[in-house]
């Protein structure tokens, strides 16, 4: 029976957490109010009380393996009822950031994107890359005449950058996640009771409906904001795929003039061509508006909550701001194009938009956005263990 458990506290890890925004974690006195008021915490080995203790003790190795920190949706019911102001909601958010950084491959990318102090370096990469491409191909000037973005930054160049780099990002992400999955499943003392696929399907269903998010008592508004950003992103991803289809399959180029080529695609019907074009534009704009509204709400909610029970970490702030800026610049660029704004402004806005899109897509394994994969993996594992709360 006598069995020694040796813990190795990592004091530096504790300091890092505190510096990143978890400065309240030492206030926790382990009363477990948080574990009870959390609507997402299971009865068996509930969180976040135990994570707070592990964080205080600097048990980095344990926390890196944790699936529970990903079950948390940051509703902050825990922080509201916390008698010590230890803000478990914030501490768990910082822990998730640390896990993203720890599993980052290559390591330096985790540091570059994970530490908000490095934001200028992170943005400099796409800026320099785009300037070099434009310069080398003789496009580094404001094109004459009507604003057409592809005159300034030809679509082939964009695809030439984004297609291979996003492929690389996916590969890097796959390495990070498989590392995370291995640690998480090996570190668990419980044995799975359910298969992977059904658990994954159930998890995805839950994510699509935001069932977990809606269980939050405090901050119900956050699930609305998140739904908008979530479906805004999905809509824009579909838009991108659709545009690729238009360009490479239909060979119909932006800005989708209803010309002879277009008529030949639609069997000579101008009405069909127009309808197709309008549906496409409506879909794209609706998605962009959702992202814009969601991004705006995310920031508004966080500002509102800030005084009460949460101090959003700079890591989260950064990403929320970038999401909002992507929406704003994308939308502005379109408005400027259609309303005949000075060309230099329209092209500059478009350039900024591309830089931010680069940040979101290419840095996905290292930014806050990475949570959608980590969380999906962790919830799936929890469902396999059959310890997830009933929805």
């Amino acid at each position, binding site marked *: 029976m006598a069995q020694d458990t040796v813990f190795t506290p990592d004091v530096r890890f504790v300091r890092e957490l505190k510096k990143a925004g978890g400065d309240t974690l030492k206030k926790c*006195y*382990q*009363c*477990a*109010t*948080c*574990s*009870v*008021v959390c609507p997402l*915490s*299971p*009865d*068996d*080995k*509930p969180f976040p*009380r135990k994570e707070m203790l592990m964080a205080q003790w600097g048990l980095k190795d344990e926390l890196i393996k944790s699936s529970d920190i990903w079950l948390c949706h940051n509703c902050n019911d825990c922080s509201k*009822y916390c*008698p*010590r*102001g230890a803000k478990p909601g914030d501490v768990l958010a910082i822990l998730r950031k640390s896990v993203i950084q720890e599993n980052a491959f290559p390591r330096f990318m985790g540091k570059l994107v994970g530490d908000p102090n490095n934001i200028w370096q992170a943005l400099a990469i796409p800026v320099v890359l785009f300037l070099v491409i434009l310069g080398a191909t003789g496009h580094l000037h404001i094109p004459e005449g009507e604003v057409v973005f592809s005159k300034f930054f030809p679509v082939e160049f964009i695809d030439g950058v984004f297609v291979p780099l996003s492929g690389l990002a996916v590969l890097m992400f796959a390495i990070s996640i498989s590392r995370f999955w291995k640690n998480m499943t090996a570190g668990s003392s419980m044995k799975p009771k359910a298969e992977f696929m059904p658990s994954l399907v159930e998890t995805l269903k839950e994510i699509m409906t935001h069932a977990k998010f809606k269980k939050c008592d405090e901050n119900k508004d956050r699930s609305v904001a998140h739904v908008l950003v979530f479906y805004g992103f999905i809509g824009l991803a579909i838009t991108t795929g659709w545009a690729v289809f238009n360009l490479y399959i239909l060979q119909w180029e932006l800005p989708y003039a209803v010309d002879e080529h277009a008529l030949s695609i639609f069997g000579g019907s101008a009405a069909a061509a127009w309808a197709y074009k309008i549906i496409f534009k409506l879909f794209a704009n609706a998605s962009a508006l959702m992202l814009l509204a969601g991004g705006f709400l995310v920031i508004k909610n966080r500002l509102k909550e800030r005084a009460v029970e949460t101090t959003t970490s700079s890591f989260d702030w950064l990403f929320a701001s970038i999401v909002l800026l992507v929406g704003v610049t994308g939308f502005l660029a379109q408005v400027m194009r259609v309303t005949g704004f000075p060309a230099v402004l329209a092209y500059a806005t478009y350039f900024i938009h591309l830089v931010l899109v680069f940040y979101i897509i290419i840095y996905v394994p290292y930014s806050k956005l990475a949570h959608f994969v980590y969380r999906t993996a962790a919830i799936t594992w929890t469902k396999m263990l059959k310890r997830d709360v009933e929805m």
Partner: protein
Amino acid sequence: MSVETILVVGGGISGITTAVEAAEVGYNTVLVEKSPYLGGRVAQLSKYFPKLCPPYCGLEMNFRRIKPNPKITVYTTTEVESVSGQEGNYSVRLKINPRYVNEKCTSCNACAEACPSERPNEFNFGMDKTKAAYLPHVMSYPMRYVIDRNACKDKSCDKCVKACIYNAIDLNMKPQTVDIKVGSIVYATGWNPYDATKMDNLGYGRIKNVITNMMLERLASPNGPTGGKLLRPSDKKEVKKVVFVQCAGSRDENHLNYCSAICCMASLKHATYFRERIADSKVLIAYIDLRAPGKYEEFLVKVQSDPNVTMVKGKVARIEEDPATGDVILEFEDIEGGGKRHERADMAVLATGMEPSVKVDSLLSFEENGFIIGGKAAGICSTGVAKRPSDVTTSIQDATGAALKSIQSLVRS
């Protein structure tokens, strides 16, 4: 030349102690109490530490010291209206609220029998009612009835006056003011139980069978609403299983940001109420930390050794009611390895903390939690729970010290 009189504000165990100790070494003391009786919170207890005797034992000894001592003047139903001056020479105006019953009262109860109106009995935390003409409690000092004019539904009713054969009732009594000179002042204004309805997750006020620790003292008292039987409020069923919710509001920055010092020992004592009276009763105490300082540890060990008493580390953070049975379901995490528990019980007792009764006064300085440090000027000090959360023993020791301190003020000026 200083005025040789000490004013003691508050007639609980601390105020009584200061007044008696100072008077017994020869100083005049004026003891002022807002309610119609002396004894304060101690009078409401069923048993108290250290010897677990009923409070009347200790209070009666003190009343016996007050009564024959010409140096002590007691004012009940009285408040301090204003204070001015300096150490050695304070002018104090007292406002005596009408009791409507004079010193001729023999406590024969004829007025209460004749009285047609009722009022919630605040001495029993509203768990029962008294007539509008009532005796605050069986050992009231002064032993005299009171009439609650707010509870007289028919203001023209004079049934009590007619019933009193001693002419002790005067419904036309008016508030009076009395001006006195004192050399020093001791604030022994005590505490109120923290308002448990503020903890929305614990259900007090919404769920009938969630009560507070002070309410339990009344339930356990022979002169309480149930005659000392431990029956739960919803259906008067005997309580076979009870859960104590420690730190209900205390050590919580959203409520009382300090340890109320007495609740752990109070709940341990309450556990014995159940265990001594109901043979097969089960008690669970859910705590964050158990604080049993000094000699109290022996008591903790004794209660712990009872197999029917369980202590679990983990704070109760949610209480729900089972509407079918009236049972309470308490949720907490058993931190030492049990996961989240949903414990069903007949009744839950919230170990609510102590909140200082006086929170604002331009004469006084307060520490961060609202307890009185003392006067802004010399010659004013605080004692008992008005000064810091403490048990009866500590309060009495402190009050004796306050007597000396107030005497020093007189001698100094």
